[in-house]
């Protein structure tokens, strides 16, 4: 799943990585809101370009490009579907030619993917769970979240071992039609689930042995604190929001069709 590739975390020391996840999330939400507010291609292109400095500053270009590549298939699909519906009797704003509206839709999707992938590429799961915790999400959920992430590589390795073991016993995974192939995976899934349940029991034992649930008021080793860079990002994002609201309300944004003709 190449779409998810873009969401895998790799720790880098960069100013963007140091930012408070809550602030970054606010930024994502504002980008999200602005992208929804505009139907025209021009502001969406601007929105797309504005975020590129963030990517460069965080030096996650490679992963970012990969996640966009993964999303491009869906973007094309969105374009085709919108175009088809518009062409065969749907409605689209009269100032646009039939291709501009679908193009805006795909761009909007790409802007969303872009901002979310910046968020996930620069926020460690530990920080994310900390942000959740400090936003008063119950600790059990935050713990489940980080533990799930912690065990992804372990389970992947285990799945590989089971696959090898079953292949050594003569299981052929790549054989038959689609339904047969899905069925082929049952002998992989069952041992995987059984061992995951067994693992969870051992985990529970280890947690109990380390005073899980001793007090209601649990401390955390780390504490998120807002720094000047965080405030700067808040100001920038709010500024963008205010500008876009102003443009939306008082300035009519020309569509590409109007500009070209």
């Amino acid at each position, binding site marked *: 799943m190449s779409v998810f590739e873009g969401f895998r975390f790799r720790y880098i020391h960069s100013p963007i990585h140091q930012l408070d996840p809550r602030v970054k999330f606010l930024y994502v939400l504002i980008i999200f809101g602005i992208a929804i507010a505009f139907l025209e291609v021009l502001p969406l292109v601007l929105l797309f370009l504005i975020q590129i400095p963030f990517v460069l500053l965080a030096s996650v270009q490679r992963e970012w490009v990969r996640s966009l590549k993964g999303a491009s298939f869906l973007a094309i699909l969105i374009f085709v579907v919108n175009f088809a519906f518009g062409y065969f009797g749907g409605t689209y704003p009269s100032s646009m030619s039939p291709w501009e509206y679908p193009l805006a839709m795909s761009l909007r999707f790409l802007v969303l993917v872009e901002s979310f992938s910046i968020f996930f590429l620069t926020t460690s799961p530990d920080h994310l769970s900390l942000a959740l915790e400090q936003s008063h999400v119950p600790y059990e959920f935050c713990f489940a979240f980080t533990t799930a992430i*912690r065990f992804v590589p372990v389970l992947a390795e285990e799945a590989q071992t089971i696959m090898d073991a079953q292949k050594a016993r003569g299981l052929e995974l790549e054989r038959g039609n689609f339904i047969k192939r899905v069925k082929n995976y049952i002998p992989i899934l069952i041992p995987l689930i059984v061992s995951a349940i067994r693992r969870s029991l051992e985990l529970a034992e280890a947690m*109990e042995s380390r005073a899980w649930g001793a007090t209601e008021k649990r*401390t955390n080793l780390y504490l998120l604190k807002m720094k000047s860079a965080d405030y700067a990002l808040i100001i920038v994002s709010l500024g963008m929001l205010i500008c876009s609201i102003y443009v939306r309300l008082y300035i009519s944004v020309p569509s590409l069709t109007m500009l070209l003709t």
Partner: protein
Amino acid sequence: MAIIEAKNLTYTYPGGTQPAIKGVSLTIEKGDFVILTGPSGCGKTTLCRCFNGLIPHFYAGRLEGELKVAKLNVTESPIYEMACHVGLVFQNPENQLFALSVEKDVAFGLENLGMPRDEIRKRVDWALQMTDIEELRERAPHELSGGQQQRVAIACVLAMQPEVMVLDEPTSFLDPLGAQKIFEVISELNRQLGITVILVEHRLDLASKHANHVVIMDERTIVLDDKPREVFDSESARLIGVGIPKATKLWQMLRQNGIRLDRAPVNSEEAIQLLRGVLKRDRG
């Protein structure tokens, strides 16, 4: 002063037809380094689970008899209270680390206790230093080798500053070198900090030189409970099939062949000394 006192301990797992341990009586002195060994399925793990209250609190079932650990009655104290006195390290290092960084994992127990942040930081630093893994602080558990993971697991338990540390076959997933490092770390904790150690282990060759007390279990109960020398040289230890240290075995073989040396060695260092002394004597 006894830190663990078990009297006639019998326990059956829920749904079990026969007890997993029966009639276990055991006294362990403060500061002891105990090796607990015996064939698979003899009840070693069950006994370990009793020491920190996982039995009966986590596993339910019926625990009969009396068990006092660090002056606490196990059946009456909740697990989190026992956890401050008894640290339990498990066999599979992978399944006892749940955070995304070593530092966070070591802090986990202390966070649960709701300790102030400064105190947590101090103790984490100390535990990492004691187990010699300071350089792994920021790493994720899945990037570490089995031996490193197990040392992290020991640090996690150590950070809570327990009086007793119970290690249930901590080296069975490790290579001999990793195992040796673990034994050295544990022995250091035992000597420097006076932590009472209970080590469940099959590799007696490597472990026995650190121990001053050996307990052998078989068929769900304790069959031998004495100093290493007496236990390893006993007839029943051989019959049960315990992996007696090679040094002791050598001594026994020599004795069978009519060569009597004054006392049974329990590790290779002692054997070397003994043989050297004998050879010198013969030459001179």
